[in-house]
């Protein structure tokens, strides 16, 4: 790096021009016009479509696979088994054989003509009712203790016991998982992959196919959702690569919706029996939980209990993982946090009801137990209280209400952040144009826009003056987009790269301006001498002095420009029809901090999105497994329900954006807002009904069961 003359630190909030303002996303016009080309949209010449025969049982052994008939069908170019006799399959939907054909219709038909005989094996679909889980599918409980729990409960003035939890759900990316592979010759392959981690694709292709990584061209300009489920190439991509290599024709493999919902990622269930000890004034003194959950056929279901209030002095925890024969879990926005928030905040709300306290008062009383974020929560609770008018609206559970009952619930959440590895090149050309290239990807979070804002802010240029190139493996590598680490990585890398480029430009124009490079700044489209606005040169004219080759500023992620650790508060207002059991979210309030905000508009969108996804899991989502066959019963969008536009009520978002927050550095926002909604909605329902609906999704049936109006 050249010597740092221009300060790389973020400007103060009052000095920013684009940073922290509401900027429309750069990829908006391509997305609204249909011009944005996703992996699914790639149609190279002579394309083959790959489709699978898949296991329709939760657990089975292959007796035989016959692809003869499929291979002879019109248009079929390739057909082969992916498993052999005796192989055990551990979840429905997993691929057992593949065909590739010249049209999608022919490939689908041929896949149906594959004949597979199975020996069905005993499986487990049970994870809600702990006592009903066969022993062989129960993991050994993990335990943790702190303080003196027995003493705390012996001395407790109030003790609450409750049971809570939520079902397995799926990522349900609208663009399914998949890729398009194309061998240009024996040694060179191009691959479009719907991925959250473009920079690692070439290495994975090399390990799968034997093609050297340097000869892999990997592209993902846009992707239709990931949410933690698209970090690496999958078995189906490897199959498509094999067909592409053998046939020398491009092969498209995109999972059909049923397979997407069965095998391409899920979030573990999480259930717990909780006991809370408290004093009469609402101070939480003890916590005991026995929790369990299932990550399907693979992954961890562990919870973080007690969530946020992890300073409760006396705790005893145990957690048991359960194997269910269902597609394995993958990271789902804020792994373990939504389930943990639901269990903890529900137990605290119930304890408050037992104490006759407003839960907001109980939470405020115990904020010290939340640790370093206590002040953040206190501030956010005040804001949320005003936005929801909680203090005016909240009523105790036993309030007399009619058929339609209104209730309010709240939840707190936290997440880390930080920033992943990120490298970039920022080029300033002699004609005054600027581009940045970075091997990152935009999941719809606004990554591309954020990077452009940082470069434009740094170089004193309008946003449209910066061309951002991302989503290709040939660009300087950046990390996978997960755990809210992207924006910290890419923004700091872009800032460092742009500052480096600016300093090089200053050195070129210092003589022209008759001032040392250290005294120059880039603002409002000019390079000028600090405090001498008369001495300036237009950016474009300055660039003419660059010479024959462009300036290249190298950017790398920088810990001093990012931070970690956010808190958020959310409140829900619901109406519950006590006769039909239908829950309607009428109003939802989300208050969130995330350090330095780069684009307020897309930051707010992240929070709206997280809230809506969370409301969906609170009320609608569950991957239902048939206890008899182990087949997923709802691998479609009719019965795997997503909230529609009329299901979400009025949502209000407030971003904490004072100099105190701004000066912290950049912190990611993908996970935090998706954590609390389930808990806030569940608490609002409990407040409305006067009884706890113990499990999410809170379907009408669950409501009626809780009210004693339906048989089990």
């Amino acid at each position, binding site marked *: 790096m050249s010597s740092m003359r221009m300060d790389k630190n973020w400007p103060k909030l009052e000095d920013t021009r684009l940073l922290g303002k509401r900027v429309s996303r750069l990829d908006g016009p391509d997305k609204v016009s*249909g011009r944005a080309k996703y992996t699914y949209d790639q149609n190279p010449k002579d394309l083959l479509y790959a489709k699978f025969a898949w296991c329709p049982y939760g657990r089975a052994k292959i007796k035989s696979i016959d692809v003869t008939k499929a291979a002879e069908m019109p248009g079929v170019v390739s057909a082969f088994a992916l498993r052999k006799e005796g192989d055990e399959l551990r979840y429905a939907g997993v691929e057992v054989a593949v065909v590739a054909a010249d049209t999608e219709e022919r490939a689908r038909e041929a896949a149906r003509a594959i004949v597979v005989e199975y020996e069905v094996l005993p499986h487990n679909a049970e994870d809600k009712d702990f006592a009903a889980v066969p022993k062989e599918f129960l993991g050994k409980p993990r335990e943790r203790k702190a303080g003196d729990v027995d003493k705390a409960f012996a001395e407790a003035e109030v003790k609450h016991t409750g049971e809570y939890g939520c079902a397995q759900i799926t990522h349900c990316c609208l663009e399914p998982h998949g890729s398009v592979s194309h061998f240009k010759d024996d040694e060179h392959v191009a691959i479009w992959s719907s991925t959250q981690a473009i920079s690692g694709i070439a290495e994975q292709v090399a390990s799968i196919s034997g093609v050297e990584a340097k000869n892999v061209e990997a592209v993902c300009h846009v992707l239709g959702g990931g949410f933690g489920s698209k970090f690496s190439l999958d078995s189906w991509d490897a199959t498509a690569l094999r067909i592409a290599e053998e046939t020398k024709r491009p092969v498209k493999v995109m999972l059909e919706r049923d397979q997407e919902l069965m095998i391409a990622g899920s979030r573990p269930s999480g259930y717990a029996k909780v006991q809370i000890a408290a004093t009469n004034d609402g101070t939480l003194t003890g916590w005991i939980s026995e929790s369990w959950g299932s990550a399907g056929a693979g992954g961890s279901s562990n919870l973080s209990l007690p969530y946020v209030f992890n300073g409760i002095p006396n705790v005893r925890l145990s957690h048991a993982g359960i194997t269910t024969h269902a597609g394995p879990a993958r990271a789902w926005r804020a792994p373990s946090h939504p389930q943990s928030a639901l269990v903890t905040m529900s137990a605290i709300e119930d304890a408050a009801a037992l104490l006759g306290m407003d839960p907001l008062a109980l939470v405020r009383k115990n904020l010290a137990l939340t640790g370093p974020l206590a002040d953040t929560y206190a501030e956010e609770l005040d804001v949320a209280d005003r936005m929801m008018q909680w203090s005016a609206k909240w009523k105790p559970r036993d309030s007399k209400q009619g058929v339609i009952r209104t209730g309010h619930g709240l939840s707190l959440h936290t997440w880390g952040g930080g920033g992943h590895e990120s490298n970039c090149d920022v080029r300033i050309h002699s004609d005054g144009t600027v581009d940045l290239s970075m091997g990152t990807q935009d999941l719809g979070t606004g990554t591309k826009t954020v990077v452009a804002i940082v470069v434009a802010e740094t170089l004193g240029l309008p946003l449209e003056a910066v061309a951002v190139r991302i989503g290709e493996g040939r660009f300087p590598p950046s990390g996978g987009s997960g755990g809210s680490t992207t924006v910290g990585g890419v923004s700091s890398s872009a800032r460092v790269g742009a500052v480096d480029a600016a300093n090089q430009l200053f050195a070129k124009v210092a003589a022209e301006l008759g001032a040392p490079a250290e005294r120059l700044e880039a603002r409002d489209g000019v390079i000028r001498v600090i405090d001498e606005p008369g001495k300036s040169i237009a950016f474009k004219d300055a660039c003419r002095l660059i010479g024959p080759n462009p300036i290249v500023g190298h950017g790398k992620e920088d810990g001093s420009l990012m931070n970690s650790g956010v808190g958020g508060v959310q409140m829900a207002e619901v109406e519950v029809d006590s006769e039909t059991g239908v829950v309607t979210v009428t109003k939802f309030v989300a208050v969130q901090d995330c350090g330095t905000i780069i684009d307020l508009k897309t930051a707010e969108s992240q929070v709206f999105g997280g809230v809506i996804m969370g409301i969906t899991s609170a009320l609608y989502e569950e991957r239902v497994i048939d206890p008899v066959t182990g087949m997923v019963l709802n691998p479609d969008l009719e019965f795997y329900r*997503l909230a529609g536009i009329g299901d979400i009520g009025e949502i209000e978002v407030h971003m904490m954006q004072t100099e105190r927050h701004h000066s912290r550095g950049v912190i990611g926002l993908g996970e935090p807002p998706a954590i609390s909604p389930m808990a806030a909605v569940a608490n609002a329902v409990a407040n409305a009904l006067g009884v706890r609906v113990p499990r999410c999704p809170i379907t009408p049936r669950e409501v009626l069961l809780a009210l004693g109006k339906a048989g089990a």
Partner: protein
Amino acid sequence: MSDPNGLSRRHFLKGVGAGAIVAGSIEALSAEARAAAQAANPCVGPGAVPIKLSINGSVRELAVEPRTTLLDALRNHLDLTGSKKVCDRATCGACTVLIDGKAAYSCTTLAIAAQGRTIETVESLANGAELAPIQKAFVEHDAQQCGFCTPGFVVASEALLRTNASPDRAAVLEGLGGNLCRCGTYVGLKKACMSAGAPAKGGRR
């Protein structure tokens, strides 16, 4: 019941004459009548059949199997990939196009049945780089994240605005109620659809 090709059985009989039907000789029919017979006869295929579709103001000729959906014809045969395939069974609306000006799920419309109808896809709404008012409103109100559901919502919004130039909240919830989004862009979608519908001062919407 109206035929999607605008050809009723009555029209068919009138066109070819009862005698030809009685004779039962398809070879005896004129080319025009043969085309009409094929259009009226549900037993075409199973191989690819030539069809003509009126898409975005031009007539496109292609050969698809009768089972090919309009969505697959658009995406796989004409490289019009703005319409997306998500649920592939008329639940999510990512495949929404306008057929004779009305929003329709192209994933559950057969391509051969769309002959003779006017099809508009999301690609037709912008005039070159100049976005349509509803598209500008989507960008302004950030009514997209990953963007995969977005074209379907744009087309559904356009269909709504053509019948109701200033939709209120209830009309928007109904008009966009046949589409699903996973990222959670509904707040922006509501604002976009309502603001695009509101007449701007001194101008059209």
